[in-house]
């Protein structure tokens, strides 16, 4: 018969304020298997833990139940106490009577006390069936993968590489740089975005510990902390990158025109293109969907021979290429190439995308002079469609009056309820850049609230106001097109308490920051989840902001939620230091809470094999029959197999049928 000790925590007033602790203690004392029940003001304090250790040392108890707060934060420290007392640390069970009881039932003291009794009874019932388990250690592959080559991903990669670890940086575009590469200047210091970013891109490109995998996407992820097996698809570039020097001759020769993503669709690029002038690596890729196959040079075909000259007839890009990097006779696999990586940890920094203007019909998105703030960013940039000249898209005139509209798609129940956080500052920045260069421009910013929390941000705002940028509080109801490429902005000025109208030459929409496309799918491959707004969920908002529920996978930058550059970089560097911990230790403890198949009863249907997110299960032949077998090193104890097994012959240690039945029975009493 087990001898269970129950310890009930007051958590100051957190628990005792709603739960009658003494009543619960008396109740616990009488539960089957319980030999003693104590309560204490703070069980997690030193004297609280000492209580447990002493009772174990005195030989009074051999199972421990602590009724307190959440195992998420406190289970490790109580397990440690149990171990220090001299018991196997898995002979411990926790009842969460704070988060699941006293807090939500604060105004129902009687109910909270009754529920606390149930939760304690359930934990005690499970404790009777606990089994001693041994920790396992897994060797760590001393390498890391960073997904996303924006400013966050690059800093995460650089930090890890500087610590001496091998880093694979996977970026889906041909070049690293991300959204920051598109920006003209950056707040709050107005330094040129490219000027501060390019050196980082170069460092990433030349670092001996960083292997750059651009134009690549994560195909699948298997394994767990210490030993992730990642398949990365290097998309087909149709150019031999070993030979390409990035001279751009092929680009100049290409006659095809495709809307340029880097300039937010405001001008055209070629079908063969280099993403932007500072691209790293500076290599050309062929956008095969838009390639015209000039001179009938479909990829992988031999050139026709000129009937008179006897020379092969080549496509213009091939003719222009001096190094032979562009060779259309070669047979390229359109599927690209799969590269297999073994890494110990993974950082996800896939960034964001800005919302398109199209859904906002009330703001006349069909007008070329209604643009998104990111488009304005490109207009202001020296590498943009106007080469930095401030022209409006419709006729190239310099706009005299500009209206900015904030919270377009953000803080709006129709689209996103969250605040995109960076819009107030970037609108001010764009307005200031224009106003400083062209002081006679009239600039109006329509806002709901100006949110400029951040170091030096409020000063920035005040400076902009002093420059004469006009701030109007009130939501814009409509933007109408007028003759002569003019736009009428209709809004309600909350401060005046009256409708206002103004005519503008250019309207800039501060559209919302959204998760990068495909983030949810990537999350699924990694086993991490997105919140309701589609951004990746961290493990704990305050205490574990870069960790995810999957050990060994960390997140940084706008993949986790809208943030500005300083925040993205801080978080990236935090993620890299978290991701370096297992690499430095060389091996990690893996909880023995893993699944086991009762082979004798396994019917070999293979359901578990298909469902296991860690590919830890195989079918092996045993006396002519197939049976499932779980690789202990790979199993992460998620329990999917145990739940899915149609025959119910998989046991998840720590959550066995007997334990769970006992809990349910206790709850039902």
């Amino acid at each position, binding site marked *: 018969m087990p001898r269970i000790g129950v310890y009930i925590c007051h958590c100051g007033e957190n628990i005792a304020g709603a739960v009658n602790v003494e009543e619960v203690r008396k109740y616990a004392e009488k539960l089957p298997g319980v030999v003693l029940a104590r309560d204490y003001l703070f069980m997690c304090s030193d004297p609280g833990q000492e209580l447990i250790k002493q009772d174990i040392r005195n030989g009074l108890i051999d199972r421990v139940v602590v009724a307190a707060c959440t195992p998420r934060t406190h289970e490790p420290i109580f397990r440690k106490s149990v171990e220090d007392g001299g018991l196997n640390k898995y002979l411990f069970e926790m009842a969460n009577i704070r988060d699941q009881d006293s807090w939500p039932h604060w105004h129902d003291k009687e109910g909270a006390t009754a529920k606390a009794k149930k939760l304690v009874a359930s934990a005690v019932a499970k404790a009777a069936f606990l089994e001693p388990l041994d920790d396992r250690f897994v060797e760590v592959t001393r390498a890391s993968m960073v997904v996303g080559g924006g400013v966050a991903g690059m800093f995460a990669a650089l930090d890890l590489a500087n610590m001496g670890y091998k880093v694979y940086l996977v970026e889906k575009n041909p070049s690293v740089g991300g959204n920051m590469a598109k920006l003209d200047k950056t707040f709050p210091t107005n330094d040129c975005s490219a000027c501060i970013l390019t050196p980082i891109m170069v460092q990433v490109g030349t670092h001996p510990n960083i292997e750059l995998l651009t134009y690549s996407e994560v195909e699948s992820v298997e394994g767990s902390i210490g030993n992730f097996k990642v398949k990365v698809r290097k998309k087909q570039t149709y150019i031999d990158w070993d030979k390409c020097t990035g001279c751009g001759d092929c680009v100049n020769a290409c006659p095809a025109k495709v809307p340029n993503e880097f300039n937010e669709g405001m001008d055209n690029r070629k079908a063969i293109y280099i993403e932007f002038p500072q691209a790293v690596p500076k290599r050309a890729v062929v956008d095969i969907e838009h390639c015209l196959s000039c001179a009938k040079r479909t990829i992988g075909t031999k050139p026709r021979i000129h009937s008179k000259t006897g020379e092969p007839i080549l496509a213009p890009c091939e003719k222009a290429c001096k190094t032979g990097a562009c060779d259309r006779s070669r047979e390229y696999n359109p599927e690209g190439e799969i590269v297999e990586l073994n890494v110990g940890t993974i950082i996800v920094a896939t960034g964001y995308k800005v919302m398109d203007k199209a859904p906002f019909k009330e703001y006349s998105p069909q007008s070329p002079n209604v643009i998104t703030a990111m488009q304005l960013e490109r207009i202001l940039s020296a590498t943009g469609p106007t080469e930095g000249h401030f022209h409006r898209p419709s006729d190239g005139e310099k706009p005299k009056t500009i209206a900015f509209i904030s919270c377009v798609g953000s803080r709006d129940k129709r689209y996103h309820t969250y605040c995109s956080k960076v819009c107030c500052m970037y609108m001010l920045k764009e307005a200031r850049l224009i106003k400083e260069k062209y002081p006679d421009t009239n600039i109006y910013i329509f806002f709901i609230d100006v949110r400029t929390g951040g170091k030096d941000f409020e000063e920035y705002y005040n400076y902009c106001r002093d420059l004469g940028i006009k701030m109007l509080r009130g939501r814009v109801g409509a933007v109408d097109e007028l003759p002569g490429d003019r736009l009428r902005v209709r809004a309600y000025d909350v401060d005046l308490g009256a409708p206002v109208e103004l005519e503008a030459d250019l309207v800039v929409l501060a559209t919302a920051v959204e998760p990068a496309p495909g983030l*949810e799918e990537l999350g*699924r491959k990694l086993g991490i989840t997105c919140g309701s707004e589609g951004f990746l969920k961290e493990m704990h908002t305050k205490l574990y902001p870069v960790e995810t529920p999957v050990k060994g996978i960390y997140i940084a930058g706008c993949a986790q939620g809208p943030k500005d550059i300083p925040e993205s970089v801080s978080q990236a560097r935090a993620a890299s230091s978290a991701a370096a911990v297992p690499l430095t230790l060389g091996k990690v403890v893996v909880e023995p809470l893993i699944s086991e198949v009762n082979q*004798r*009863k*396994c*019917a*070999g*249907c*293979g*359901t578990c094999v*298909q*469902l296991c*997110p860690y590919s830890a299960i195989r*079918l092996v032949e045993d006396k*002519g*029959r*197939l049976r499932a077998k779980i690789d202990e090193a790979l199993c992460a104890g998620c329990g999917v197999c145990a739940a*899915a097994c*149609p*025959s*119910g*012959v998989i046991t998840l240690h720590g959550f066995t*049928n*007997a334990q769970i*039945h006992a809990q349910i029975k206790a709850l039902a009493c």
Partner: protein
Amino acid sequence: MRELTKAIQETAQKLLQDKEVELVVGFAEGSLPLRNTPCFIRQPEEAQRLVWGYGCENNLATYLRKRPEKLAVVAKGCDSRSIVELIKENQINREKLVIIGVPCQGMIDRKKVTRLLAGRELLEAEVKDGQVVLKGKGYSEAVPREQLLHDSCLTCQHPNPVLFDIMLGEPVPVKEADSFGDLASFEAKAPAEKRAYLIQELSRCIRCYACRQACPMCFCEECFADCSMPQWLSKSSLNVQDNVFFQAVRALHLAGRCVDCGACDRACPTSIDLRTLTHKMVKDVQELFGYTAGVSLEEKPPLAAPLSSSTLNHF
């Protein structure tokens, strides 16, 4: 029927003679009118015992799991669909199986015949031109065949085998019946009424587990009903709640596997309406996951595939 019988016999004989298979599983004449019985043929000369009739109602896929030898099976639409699911769940080695596909006209439900004859003994039956002529002492009665078919055959959408190596006979046309129309009255019931109905039906259960044994998809090495550690339910049939529990779990275990062949229903010696529960589950699987069991070797059963956002949209 006669042509099909002949074709089955010839095919079986040839397969055995050429040593392509060691065993042919099919149907033989039963001892009562309108009854056929599963039959296992190992010698070419025994192939004459094989027949095709209106009583070939068992799902022969049940006999194919984990067989060591190479064998052939006579399969109608529902058998073939069960075979597809069993291949996907590694219970049948496709390379060791020859499927002799036979189109199915629907099988005759002898319980309907018994009800119709109201106590009179059936001595002879003949099916001709869509009419079943029932004969006994002092009577001869002709009934339209449709009236006597199994309920599962009436709503069947796959009378022709979906997977076969050899196809005998001409495919039969697929009825444009609403496959779930017969569930309307059950679905219209309030939860309490549903429960009352199931309790009323399952009060007759004697826990013989014939339903489980007849089902090709019930292949656990140890059924949860037989398990004693933990003991999920009582072993006695006197506990009606546990009888309902057994059938509810059985239906859920068959989610994405059940092809609605009706074998469980027919096997029940106390004529419990088992099919309503499984049929409803088939409908739910189709509505929630867009999955029909046994029609494709490639499509993963919904409970063996990770949920995708497109699947989740159904919820």
